[in-house]
């Protein structure tokens, strides 16, 4: 398909006694193509070889990708079901004994049924994730609603992509993370990137980013830190954490004042321009600067460049999305493209850098508390009817919408939810306000966790089920472009581990719901049912067969039939997905972060990632190379601020907020705002920065405000209480 200037015909090195299995990385939304090297004598994965012919990353990988293969046969793999009889040991790694699958399933079925008989169907919950295939994500939604019959299912995308989804739905009426393929990026004239530490979080995008500059194009980066990508930006908008909405409004105001509005596009294809114009008037460069802390000249220059650029792409990530106004931020930055008409054509558009491998596909097919397959809505009676018919259940049997991820922990705390089936996620590290979340997990009546390593969250489980890694199963994933790709199986499951879809089929049978699941005998069976289930929804995957994915180097959804090639570029016909076919320009009044600094907590705390680790670190912290490179968290602080607190490089300090505290090693660096400190979030137990973060939720996406809260540092080691 797309063969761009970076593509070169290169043969792979083929070692004797090895085969190469084409697949993709297990980690981020880039879903870099890679080959796994499999020893033909042991039938085990032993290494990695670049996949030069995958159009997105042309063989390139970040250090996580290079070492991803080491997960499969790692010593820490859980090889058999584990049961813990002594509940007093919850929250520790102790007390687990190996058990048979039969015993584990029996125990789960008995406890689930007991809880539901005593406290109702909704006393059970499912908390899942999107680092797994579309097929598994789909089946997890069906399992919750059909096998368990509970309304409480949600997933870790609420901590990742939900604000992008909410913003795109409001602006475009459709939530496809990128309106254009990545192979367009290096050909645009201006990249405006907000709240994305691209070099560390999506490294294989970087050769395209740098190429824009090499061609004479511009790079604008908005970030409180001078990240590796901001270091080389033409304009670095070094804003205060949590003030993106003001910055976006300020730039919009300048674009309008300086005549960069595409009147024809605005009149014919959008709504909401006039009221937005009124609203952003007050965001003069000076007023915007007052809120954001960015110098007015920089704001003016950024607006000028974006306005003049023949083609431009607005991109963003968790920096703007993990705020209690994340959805507004997304719509506000998207406004830039809508008023200038830089969308709906090649080399121009809007994109979010999807965090998790299947952050896009995993949010579309019914793991979210209010969604059903094909991005159908549980609140839409027609949608519910379609899915009920497909699943063969009555409409009365379909549970109501539940609540968002963080709110599930509140319901656990209130004893509304008493049982949990956790898979593909590690909320004991990744959820905000961890003290509360961990207590909620600990107080559950019964908890099952499916994982391939004993995560910090698994420490709270009564039963742990050994799942397979990505390399021991097959299925599809939708990458950050909206391109559906195929993960291939390179090795048989290690020990007694099983893929989650199989676990769900077998559990459903134990729960007496086999007739809805027993026909699913292989990953392909699940895939076929999944595709059929999406038919007619707007995230229609029905035409994205495994054959077509192989032939075309992936298929961009929507793909509605066998002869539909898919949709690499969205909105080429200038038709958006709102009923009137128009996009919405949104007038969005500014709101400060939920918690602003004050005398007691004068610093702004923001969190993020390092290149060596992925999400909660449950996988990457176990990989020797990655652990050697970044063994522990640290607090980044400007030298002037450090001097005020009389703290030195590498000294241990206590960082605390209204919710919690932790000790971190100081990393002094000038490449951060003086009023801001930064801590990476990949670490568990008492090293977890989420002990401190603020669970203030976005009203639409229910995304917690990980990216901005008020904090204080204390030099002494002694604890103050």
């Amino acid at each position, binding site marked *: 398909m797309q063969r761009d200037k970076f593509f070169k015909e290169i043969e792979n090195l083929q070692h004797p006694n090895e085969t190469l299995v084409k697949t993709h990385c297990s980690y981020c939304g880039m879903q870099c193509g890679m080959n796994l090297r499999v020893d033909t004598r042991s039938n085990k994965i032993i290494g990695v070889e*670049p996949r030069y012919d995958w159009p997105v990353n042309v063989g390139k990988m*970040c*250090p996580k990708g290079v070492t991803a293969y080491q997960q499969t046969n790692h010593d820490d793999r859980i090889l058999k079901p584990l049961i813990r009889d002594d509940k007093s040991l919850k929250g520790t790694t102790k007390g687990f004994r190996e058990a048979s699958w039969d015993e584990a399933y029996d125990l789960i079925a008995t406890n689930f049924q007991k809880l539901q008989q005593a406290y109702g169907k909704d006393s059970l919950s499912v908390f899942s994730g999107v680092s797994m295939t579309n097929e598994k994500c789909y089946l997890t939604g069906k399992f919750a609603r059909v096998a368990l019959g509970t309304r409480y299912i949600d997933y870790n995308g609420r901590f990742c992509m939900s604000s992008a989804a909410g913003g795109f739905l409001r602006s475009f009426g459709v939530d496809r993370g990128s309106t254009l393929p990545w192979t367009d990026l290096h050909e645009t004239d201006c990249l405006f990137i907000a709240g994305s530490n691209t070099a560390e979080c999506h*490294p294989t995008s*970087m050769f395209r980013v740098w190429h824009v500059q*090499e061609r004479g194009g*511009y790079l604008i980066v908005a970030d409180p830190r001078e990240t590796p990508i901001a270091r*080389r930006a033409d304009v670095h908008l070094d804003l205060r954490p949590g003030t993106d909405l003001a910055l976006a409004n300020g730039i919009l105001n300048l674009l309008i004042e300086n005549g960069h509005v595409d009147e024809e596009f605005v009149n014919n294809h959008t709504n909401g321009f006039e009221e937005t114009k009124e609203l952003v008037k007050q965001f003069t460069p000076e007023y915007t600067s007052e809120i954001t802390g960015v110098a007015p000249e920089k704001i003016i220059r950024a607006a000028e460049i974006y306005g003049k650029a*023949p083609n431009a792409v607005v991109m963003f990530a968790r920096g703007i999305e993990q705020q209690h106004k994340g959805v507004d931020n997304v719509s506000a930055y998207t406004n830039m493209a809508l008023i200038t008409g830089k969308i709906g054509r090649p080399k121009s558009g809007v994109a979010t850098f999807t965090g998790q491998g299947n952050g896009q596909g995993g949010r579309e097919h019914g793991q979210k508390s209010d969604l059903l397959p094909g991005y159908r809505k549980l609140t839409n009676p027609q949608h519910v009817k379609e899915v009920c018919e497909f699943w063969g259940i009555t409409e009365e049997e379909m549970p109501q919408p539940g609540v968002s991820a963080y709110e599930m922990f509140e319901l656990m705390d209130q004893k509304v939810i008493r049982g949990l089936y956790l898979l593909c996620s590690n909320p004991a590290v990744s959820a905000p306000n961890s003290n509360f979340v961990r207590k909620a997990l600990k107080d559950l009546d019964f908890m099952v966790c499916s994982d391939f390593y004993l995560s910090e969250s698994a420490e709270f489980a009564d039963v742990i089920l050994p799942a397979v890694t990505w390399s021991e199963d097959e299925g599809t994933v939708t990458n950050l472009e909206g391109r559906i790709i195929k993960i291939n199986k390179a090795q048989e499951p290690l020990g007694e581990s099983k893929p989650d879809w199989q676990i769900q089929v077998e559990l459903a049978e134990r729960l007496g719901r086999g007739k809805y699941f027993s026909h699913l005998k292989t990953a392909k069976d699940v895939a076929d049912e999944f595709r059929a289930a999406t038919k007619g929804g707007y995230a229609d995957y029905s035409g994205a067969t495994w054959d077509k994915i192989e032939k075309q180097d992936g298929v961009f959804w929507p793909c509605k039939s066998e002869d539909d090639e898919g949709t690499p570029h969205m909105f080429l016909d200038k038709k958006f997905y709102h009923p009137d076919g128009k996009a919405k320009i949104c007038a969005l009044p500014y709101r400060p972060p939920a918690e602003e600094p004050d005398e007691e907590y004068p610093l702004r705390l923001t969190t993020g990632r390092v290149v060596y680790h992925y999400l909660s670190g449950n996988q990457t912290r176990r990989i020797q*190379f990655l652990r050697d490179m970044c063994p522990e968290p640290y607090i980044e602080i400007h030298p002037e601020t450090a001097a005020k607190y009389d703290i030195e490089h590498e000294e241990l300090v206590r960082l605390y907020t209204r919710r919690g505290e932790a000790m971190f090693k100081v990393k002094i660096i000038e490449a951060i705002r003086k009023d801001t400190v930064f801590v990476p979030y990949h670490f568990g137990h008492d090293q977890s920065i989420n002990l401190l973060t603020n669970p203030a939720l976005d009203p639409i996406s229910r995304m917690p405000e990980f990216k901005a809260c008020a904090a204080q540092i204390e030099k002494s080691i002694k604890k103050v209480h």
Partner: protein
Amino acid sequence: MKKRLYIELENCIGCRSCLAACTQCGGHEERNRNYVYDVNPLVNRQTMPLMCLHCVNPACARSCPAQAIQIHETGAVLSALVEKCIGCQNCTIACPYGIPKFDTEQNLMYKCDLCIDRTKDGIPPMCASVCPTNTLQWLTEVEIEAKQKQFNLDNGKWVTSMPYLENETNVKVNLPGILQGVTKLF
């Protein structure tokens, strides 16, 4: 067509994927052989790889009393021959960049061999294959010439090929400032 390793230092983001990938080369016994440095860690996030430059007349090989460092016909300066290396570490001291590493247990030097089992057949070395920023590239002579023109080297020479360093090197390095000659599109 002969290809060379070409380095654009200013692109580096410090991801150390090149180091991780180095361990993947068949002949490398899962040990990486090059370096990535934080240029000024208390100030900014600039980083740079430090790779063996595969000198045409390499100081490491010249300094070796046991002739343990062979030069492959492709120009790659190979890792020490196990049976010849006497563990004196002369090479590490002689190399202007301190590239050769030392295994104290085996009393053996090991260094970048440009993934000779790949590059002898024209397959890019692992580092340049994976480098996500195109800091490390595997280019033909023609492509390198184009780079030389594009970046307007002030005296027509790559800096690493200056007499006071190691004279001619097989690896070509573009020092920081690759964007200096670029004309903006608008």
